[in-house]
């Protein structure tokens, strides 16, 4: 069996597992929705708040997918999977799922908030999903327990939402690019290529970071053969 087949297998099984978690799936949609609706009446910032708020749900799903199966992952590696294949399998399922939620969410925001450029809002929310999955995987790989992971996640996304968009702190956090895209979508002005590229770079770096973090936990000691 080839590596792509093992990655697809992991994606399929994570999909089957998550689809059976109906309450979690409902919350995955309801959480960013409530974020947006709660701030919808408070001006142009609602789209950025709701869009970036989606990172809580998508990154949270990736985080729990990683941490809840830590023991099984180790056994899967012993059974022939490579640690990076396990990460890619999760990415392969959660990434498209995040994009589907982003698409539905964007339609709602365009209908309610009437942004200047609806396509840019769609691009911004999609960028949130693209960054949020590897972000959740990196946090899940880097911390040992769910509480710590959740607090890191809340901290990073919360700070991204709380600080001024152009502050230095905002610029070094992972959702700066997506936030720029969302604000450009609302006003119809602002750079697109730069924030988009930044989002992709952040997603790749976070995925590689997840691979580095997961190494000590899932790496096998290779015994010499007799």
């Amino acid at each position: 069996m080839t590596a792509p087949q093992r990655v697809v297998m992991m994606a399929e099984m994570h999909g089957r597992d998550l689809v059976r978690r109906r309450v979690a799936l409902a919350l995955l949609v309801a959480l960013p929705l409530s974020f947006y609706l709660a701030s919808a009446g408070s001006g142009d910032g609602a789209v950025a708040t709701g869009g970036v708020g989606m990172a809580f749900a998508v990154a949270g799903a990736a985080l729990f997918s990683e941490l809840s199966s830590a023991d099984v992952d180790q056994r899967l590696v012993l059974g022939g999977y490579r640690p990076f294949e396990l990460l890619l399998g999760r990415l392969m399922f959660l990434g498209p799922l995040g994009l589907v939620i982003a698409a539905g969410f964007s339609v709602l925001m365009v209908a309610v908030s009437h942004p200047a450029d609806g396509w840019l809002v769609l691009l911004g929310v999609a960028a949130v999903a693209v960054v949020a999955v590897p972000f959740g995987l990196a946090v899940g790989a880097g911390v040992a327990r769910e509480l710590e992971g959740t607090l890191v996640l809340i901290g990073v996304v919360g700070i991204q939402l709380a600080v001024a968009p152009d502050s230095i702190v905002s610029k070094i956090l992972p959702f700066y690019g997506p936030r720029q895209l969302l604000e450009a979508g609302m006003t119809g002005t602002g750079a697109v290529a730069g924030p988009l590229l930044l989002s992709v770079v952040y997603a790749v770096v976070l995925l590689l970071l997840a691979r580095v973090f997961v190494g000590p936990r899932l790496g096998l000691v290779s015994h010499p053969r007799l």
Partner: protein
Amino acid sequence: MQSSPDRQLVVSGVVKNYGRRRVLDDVSLSVEAGEVLALTGENGAGKSTLMRICAGLLRADAGTVHVGGRIGYCPQSPSLFELLTADEHLIMFGRGVGLSREDALSRGHALLAEFDFPVGRTVVTAHMSGGTRQKLNLALALLPDPAVLLLDEPYQGFDRGTYVNFWEHCKVWRAEGKAVVVVTHMLAELDRVDGVFELAAARGGEG
């Protein structure tokens, strides 16, 4: 390490510390093909730690482990996805060792049937009894047809019939030429194995 066609697992001078606590102190053992070895010892003697080191899941602080072929490891508590069925586990673990869906299910069902697992039921593992989960846990260790089988108290939760059946299977594994290590506290079953290795507690530790 001197090569021997019969030896499948050789542990030499393994030391493991957890912080300041020495759990394993210069442990050496070997298991040949077709041999079933019982690993015994008090709680905290380091039995599970030694099994994890042999499986390659944990690094020893000193010493070496040599193996003759693929390792099958059955952990003490089943490591399973809560919301996947037995068949889905078989397919997923089978893919890791290069089995197609059909082959994984065919081989997996045969293994599960040997331990009276209710094959064909589409129940997720979260809704299985402890013993049923353990049967799946054991089948997953056997799925790749390992040369070395490491079983860490694999019969927990088994009913009496399955428990007896498990020990009867030692004969099958012996005949198949597997090198088997079983962690056990069941002294009454030690006449079913070929050898007993008792781990003495080093200076305290986790079992």
